[in-house]
C-alpha cells in the first residue's frame, strides 16, 4: 500500500448472480483528499462504498482502508471511520441528545461541543420526528463528533434544500479540514449534486454502469476538459465533425458551427492547437467546463458508444 493512501483498491469487484454490479477496478485515495464519486443512479457508487466498509463482501479483488484489509473492518476500527448514508437507518426512538449520549462512550475522542447548536439540531426531539434535513444533520453530528480519519458519505445531500446543503458542507469542512493539512480527514462522497461537490472535492472518480471510467485530481480534470466552439466560413462543420480526433466527444455540427468537448487537453494554448488542427476555422473558442458539464458530456459519449455497440 502507498504510504500516503487512505484507500487503495486493487481489482475490487462485486458480482451478483452473474451480473457485475461493480466491474473490477483500481483506485487510490490519498490521505486528506476529498474524493467525489460521480455517476448516475445504479453506476455502482454505493456498492463501492459498502465494499470499502465491509458492509457487503466483494466477489473479487481487494482493498485496504486505513492500512487494513476492507474485509476485516468491524468493531474497533470504526472509531476511525465515519459513515453517513441517505438511506441509513437510525435509532428512531432516541432523541438527538440520547443518540449522542449513547455513542459518546464508544469513542476514544468525542467533541460535540457546540456541534448541535451549529447544526441547529433540537436536542430533545426524537429522530423519528425530524425532517429529512434534520435527520441528515443528526447523522453528520454523530460522525463529526468523534473526528474520524476517514469519512464515507453516500448521497448525503440527496433531497436536501440548498440552504441545508450549504450548512452541512460548511460544518463538514470546518470540522474536518482545518489549517493543518496533515490532520485533514479523508472524505469519500458520492453525490448527484455536482455543483456542490465541485466546490470542495479535491479528487473525482467517475463511475458508469459499474465501471470506473477514470479517477483523478479535480483540478486536472477541469484543466483537461474544455468545451470548444469552432466557426467555419462555409457549412463544413459536419465534415469536420466526422474527422475529429479521439478524445473529442459530444460533438454537434450545425451549418458552419461545430461544438464539441475535448477531454484530452494537454497544451496551454488550446485554441492555437485547435486552429492548427482546423486551418479553415474562422473563430475558435475554448472554454473551461464545470464538473456537471463534464459529467453530461461523458454521459453522452458513453451513450453514443453503447448505441454503436448495439
Amino acid at each position, binding site marked *: 500500500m502507498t504510504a500516503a493512501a487512505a484507500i487503495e483498491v486493487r481489482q475490487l469487484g462485486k458480482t451478483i448472480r452473474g451480473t457485475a454490479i461493480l466491474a473490477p477496478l483500481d483506485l487510490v485515495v490519498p490521505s486528506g483528499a476529498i474524493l467525489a464519486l460521480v455517476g448516475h443512479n445504479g453506476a455502482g457508487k454505493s456498492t463501492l462504498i459498502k465494499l470499502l466498509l465491509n*458492509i457487503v463482501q466483494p466477489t473479487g479483488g481487494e482493498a485496504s482502508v486505513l492500512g487494513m484489509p476492507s474485509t476485516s473492518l*468491524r468493531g474497533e476500527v470504526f*472509531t476511525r471511520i465515519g*459513515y453517513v*448514508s441517505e438511506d441509513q437507518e437510525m435509532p428512531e426512538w432516541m432523541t438527538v441528545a440520547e443518540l449522542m449520549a449513547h455513542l459518546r462512550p464508544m*469513542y476514544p475522542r468525542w467533541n460535540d461541543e457546540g456541534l448541535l447548536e451549529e447544526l441547529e439540531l433540537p436536542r430533545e426531539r426524537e429522530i423519528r420526528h425530524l425532517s429529512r434535513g434534520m435527520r441528515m444533520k443528526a447523522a453528520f453530528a454523530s460522525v463529526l463528533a468523534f473526528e474520524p480519519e476517514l469519512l464515507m458519505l453516500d448521497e448525503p445531500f440527496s433531497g436536501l434544500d440548498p440552504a441545508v446543503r450549504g450548512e452541512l458542507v460548511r460544518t463538514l469542512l470546518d470540522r474536518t479540514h482545518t489549517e493543518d493539512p496533515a490532520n485533514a480527514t479523508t472524505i469519500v462522497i458520492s453525490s448527484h449534486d455536482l455543483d456542490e461537490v465541485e466546490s470542495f472535492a479535491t479528487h473525482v472518480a467517475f463511475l458508469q454502469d459499474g465501471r470506473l471510467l477514470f479517477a483523478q485530481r479535480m483540478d486536472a480534470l477541469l484543466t483537461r476538459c474544455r468545451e470548444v466552439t469552432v466557426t467555419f466560413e462555409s457549412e463544413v462543420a459536419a465534415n469536420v465533425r466526422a474527422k475529429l480526433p479521439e478524445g473529442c466527444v459530444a460533438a454537434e455540427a450545425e451549418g458552419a458551427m461545430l461544438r464539441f468537448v475535448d477531454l484530452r487537453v494537454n497544451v496551454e494554448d488550446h485554441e492555437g492547437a485547435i486552429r492548427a488542427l482546423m486551418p479553415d476555422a474562422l473563430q475558435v473558442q475554448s472554454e473551461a467546463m464545470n464538473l456537471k458539464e463534464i459529467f453530461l458530456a461523458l454521459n453522452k459519449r458513453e451513450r453514443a458508444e453503447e448505441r454503436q455497440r448495439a
Partner: protein
Amino acid sequence: MKQVRLVFWKDVRHLWRHLCVYAALLAAYAWVTPQTWPGGAPSSFLGVFATLLKILLMASQFVLITSAVHADRLVGEQQFWITRPYDWRSLLGAKFLFVVACVALPYVLMQWWLLHVAGLNPLAAKAAMTSSLLRFALVPCLLSMLIASVTDSLAAAFTFLAALLVAWAGLLQFILSGTELRMSPPYEFSGFGAGFGVLLLAILSYQFARRRTMHSRIAIAATLALFLLFIFGYDKQGFGAPVKELIRSHYEVPSNGSLRMVFGPGPVPYEESGKDLQYLHNFVEVKLPIRLEGLPADAKIQSPNVSVVLAANGMRYATPWVNASVSENAIGFPLPKEIFDRVSEMPVALHLELIAEEMRPLVTQRVAAAGRFRGPDDAECSLVGGAAACRYAYQEMVPTHVEAPAQSASCEGQRPGDPAGTWLLLMPPGARVDPVVNESLHLRGPVCAGEALVFTEYGAARRFRLAVDVSGLALRDYRARD
C-alpha cells in the same frame, strides 16, 4: 463490558413497553394458575384463561427476544450500528444479558412465586430447577435468538418460526412413523442438549461475528436435518446394531442367576392379556406367558423393554428395543402387524431379551391426612373434600406408591374397607411454565382427615438383562385381546 451495559440499557429503554406487557402477563399467570390447581375453585373458564395466558406468555417471550435482537439487527446493509465500533462479542453479550435479566429472570421469579404459593421450596429441587432452566434456555431462548438473528422483522421471524415448526413436525411425522414404542438410549437428553446447544450457539456467534445470513440459515437447516437424523438414528435406534448394543451394554446379566425368565406354556390369564395396540397403525401386541422368577416380592419393575428375534421357515426378524409391559404372568411387546400375519400360523423360534430396572422400597412414611400435610420427597399435600393431592416442585421422579390402609376412621365416603393403593405418576423434568406438579391420589374413594396414608418411595435401581428362548411357538395364540 462497558459496551455490553450500554447496549443492554439502550434495549431496556427501547423495549420498556414490551417489558411492561410481559410483566403484566407473568403477573396474570401467577394469579390465575393457583386457582386451577386441584383443590382450587373448579372453573373451566379459568383453565382456558390460564392456557391462553400460557400461549401469550410464550408469544411475548418470542417477541421480546426477537425485538431485542432486532434492535441491532444483523440482516441488511442499512443498519446504523454496523458502521459503529460495536464489538460483536459485546453485542451478543448484551443480547444474552437482556434475555437473562429481562426474560428469564422474571420468568423464574414467577415460577418461584407459584412454588411459594404451593408451599414448595424451589431450592429443595435444585437439580430439577436447573434442568428446567436449561431446557428453557435452550429451546425458547436460544432458538428465538437464532431465528431473530437471521430475520429482519418480527413478521419474518414469526414466518421463519412457523416454517421451522411445520417442517419439523412434518419431517418428524414422516421419519418417526412407527417408532413410537422404541426406547431411547442412555444420555439422550444430555447428549442432544449439549450437542445441539453448542451447534446453535456456534451458528449464533458466527452470525453475530460475520453477518452472513444465508450461510447461517443454511446452517440452521442443516442442524435441523442433523437433529432429525440423530433422533431417528440414535434416539429411535435407526442406526441399528450399534445403538442396540449400546443399550444392551447398560444392563447387566444378574451374576448369581437367581433372577430369570421362565416361559410357562399355556394361555395368558385374561386379566393380564392386555389390549391390542389399536391406536398404533400396523402394530399388534403379543402377550407371552413369561414370568420373572427370583424377583423379591417388594421389588418394582421399572422401564421394561424387550428385543425379540423371531425365526420361522427361513425367515428371521429382529425388533429393536421396544417398550414392554411386564405383569405377574406375562410380558407383552408390540410387533409389526405384517410380521405377525406372516408368522402367526407357523411354529416360531423366539429369542426374547428383557432389560429393565429393579427398584426396591427405600423409605416408607406414614402420614396422617389433613387439610395440609407434608408428603415424602418434599411434597406438599392437601385434602379437600375427601380428595387428596400432592404437589412437587418441577418434577416427580421417584416412583412412589401410596396406600390407604383398611379404613378405620369414619367419614362420609363409601370407600371399601380393604386397603387401596395408587402409584404417583412419574413426571419427567421439562420446560413447563407452571413448575408445580400436581398429583391427585386416586384411592377408590374419599380420604378422611386423620386417616393414615402410607407413602413408599422406591429407589436403588438395579439394571438387569434377561433372556429366554422358546421354540415351536404359535404366535396366533398370544395376540393381545381386542
